[in-house]
């Protein structure tokens, strides 16, 4: 699917999403693919991702393949995960003040 996906609950993606995702908790399952931006409190990635992640808590599983930027406060990367991109650290209140995905 393509477009903006916004939910206040937990969102699991097993397929392909191109666009923006805003959720409280987001899980990209193994085999899933997201191209775009994610804004959430908790993010767990098991699949392929290209774009930006804005989340205080990020977990990248061993099957994850990430390109892009991961804005985080606390990040966990499992052995085997493929990371290509910046991982800028931000304080928690940076995410608290973030209600929309920033431009750029």
């Amino acid at each position: 699917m393509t477009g903006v996906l916004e939910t206040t609950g937990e969102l699991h993606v097993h397929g392909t999403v191109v666009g923006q995702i805003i959720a409280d908790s987001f899980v990209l399952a193994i085999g899933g693919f997201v191209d775009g931006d994610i804004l959430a409190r908790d993010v767990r990635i098991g699949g392929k991702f290209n774009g930006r992640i804005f989340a205080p808590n990020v977990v990248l599983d061993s099957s994850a393949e990430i390109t892009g930027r991961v804005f985080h406060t606390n990040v966990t990367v499992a052995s085997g995960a493929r990371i290509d991109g910046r991982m800028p650290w931000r304080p928690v209140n940076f995410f608290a003040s973030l209600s929309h995905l920033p431009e750029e």
Partner: protein
Amino acid sequence: MFTRNEKPTEPTAKPQVRDKMETPVAPGGDIGRKPATSQTPTNSGASRMSAVSVISKALKITGQLESTEDIQIDGNVEGDVRAVSVTVGNGAKVKGTVYGETVEVAGTVEGKIEAKKVVLTNTAHMAGDVVHQEITIASGAFIDGHCRPDFGKTATKPAAVAQKYPSAMPEKVASGAQ
């Protein structure tokens, strides 16, 4: 005194078995470890364990560290570190680039890590880029930098290239001058 040749009293079957057991071990041997054992033939298991150079907690070093074996840093290093396996202990600090096959960080690194396998434990503080092939980051570790899975892919040592192809470099300079 004990090297006197004696007639082999053992049945011939026994050495054959030994050969068979030894041959599969050889191809699986770690290439990186082999030179170390050949340099010191009298090496026992215990002395190989002590092949780690330790920068202790009280020590501060400014300059380049290079080891053909392992380095454990518990103190303060300002400069580049290059070894097979580098461990930056909890409370330790390195300002510079850390090169290695395996780099494990529990302390602070400000600069760059270039290693095949990178491990950032929960007390790690990593400010800078990480060039890796495999990376593990424990929850609680601080990381602010660029992660690239390019270890071994790109020619990160232009000096080595210049040495290998000395003719390539002056030509470029000459053409640029004209």
